[in-house]
């Protein structure tokens, strides 16, 4: 097991694959699947087969997660627990069947699916992933809820435990609302400008400066331009 999947990885890398949007996840899952194939007894793999199998793996995880989440939601919970997950695993193994599926009163914690899983874990050796993965590259950060931030949701029908709306959405909504509440909008615009400049875009006052420059640019030399520029900026700051 130790000499990692030389053949497989070689064959993988030979081919310039088109970049899907989640290239990192796809690449990681391809390596993980290649390792699994290696432990099963394969010596090499066609790149297409490996890609399909890792796609299947990703879909399996997603379907499992989605059905567990929906089972939890049906029971009125937002967080998934072990029972939901076991039920979802049972659902997914229904096409092949499992022991005790016919008994509707079976206990979920003694499900044969779970027991098979335990036996599998006992039988399989631990394969460490070849290299550590940067967490940021893969994991999307969960956004905090309104309650965690101590803010009120912008719409009345939105409960406070939901995650906050994305900043850009709220900004565009405020702009759409028009000039209803004057003072608040002013504050918002300032904070938007600050945010923009933090994000590396041009600051809000830059536009006017450039306009003046264009006026002077045609008639005079570089020195004057620079001077004008400086003066203009200073004025702007004073105005603010």
């Amino acid at each position, binding site marked *: 097991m130790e000499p990692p999947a030389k053949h497989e990885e070689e064959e993988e890398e030979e081919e310039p694959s088109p970049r899907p949007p989640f290239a990192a996840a796809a690449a990681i899952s391809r390596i993980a699947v290649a390792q699994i194939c290696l432990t099963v007894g394969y010596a090499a793999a066609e790149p297409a087969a490996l890609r399909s199998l890792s796609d299947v793996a990703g879909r399996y995880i997603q379907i499992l997660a989605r059905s567990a989440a929906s089972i939890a939601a049906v029971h009125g919970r937002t967080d998934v627990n072990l029972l939901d997950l076991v039920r979802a695993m049972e659902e997914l193994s229904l096409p092949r069947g499992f022991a005790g599926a016919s008994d509707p009163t079976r206990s979920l914690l003694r499900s044969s699916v779970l027991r098979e899983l*335990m036996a599998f874990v006992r039988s399989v050796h631990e394969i460490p992933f070849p290299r550590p993965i940067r967490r940021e590259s893969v994991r999307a950060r969960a956004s905090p809820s309104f309650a965690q931030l101590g803010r009120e949701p912008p719409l009345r029908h939105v409960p406070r435990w939901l995650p906050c709306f994305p900043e850009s959405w709220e900004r565009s909504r405020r702009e759409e609302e028009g000039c209803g509440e004057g003072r608040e909008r002013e504050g918002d615009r300032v904070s938007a400008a600050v945010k923009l400049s933090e994000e590396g875009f041009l600051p809000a006052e830059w536009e006017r400066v450039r306009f003046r420059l264009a006026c002077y640019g045609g008639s005079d030399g570089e020195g004057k331009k620079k001077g004008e520029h400086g003066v203009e900026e200073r004025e702007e700051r004073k105005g603010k």
Partner: protein
Amino acid sequence: MNSSSGEGRHDDDSALAEFLASLMDYTPTVCLVGIPDELVEHYLSRSGFHCPDLRLTRLVAVAAQKFISEVASDALQHCKARQAAPVKDKSKQPKDKRLVLTMEDLSKALREYGVNLKHQEYFADSPSTGMEPSSREE
């Protein structure tokens, strides 16, 4: 409904508790079994799965690994069977005796699990794919 663990089945429950605890023992950053936590978390976060418990994440990873290794070992059986089958024409015998995961075996194995994998006959995996079409015919 589930926690009615009365009837002298305590060994089962303790086995489950042990199993769940064993899922925590793997080093978090490197990996647990086949599929790294980060990958699973990525997929989980995309499907609305919310759970702060790392053990459940690992359980999902283990379940996925079990599924994939079952599929792969089924495909391996197909592959071995194909290699062991007598070949009439000696020239058609593939010179490579390595066990290679191919689309053909994979789609056969996945069909049993309810996954229909259709692959293009003329899809060129690599420049050498079209060279020896004789080795795979059905």
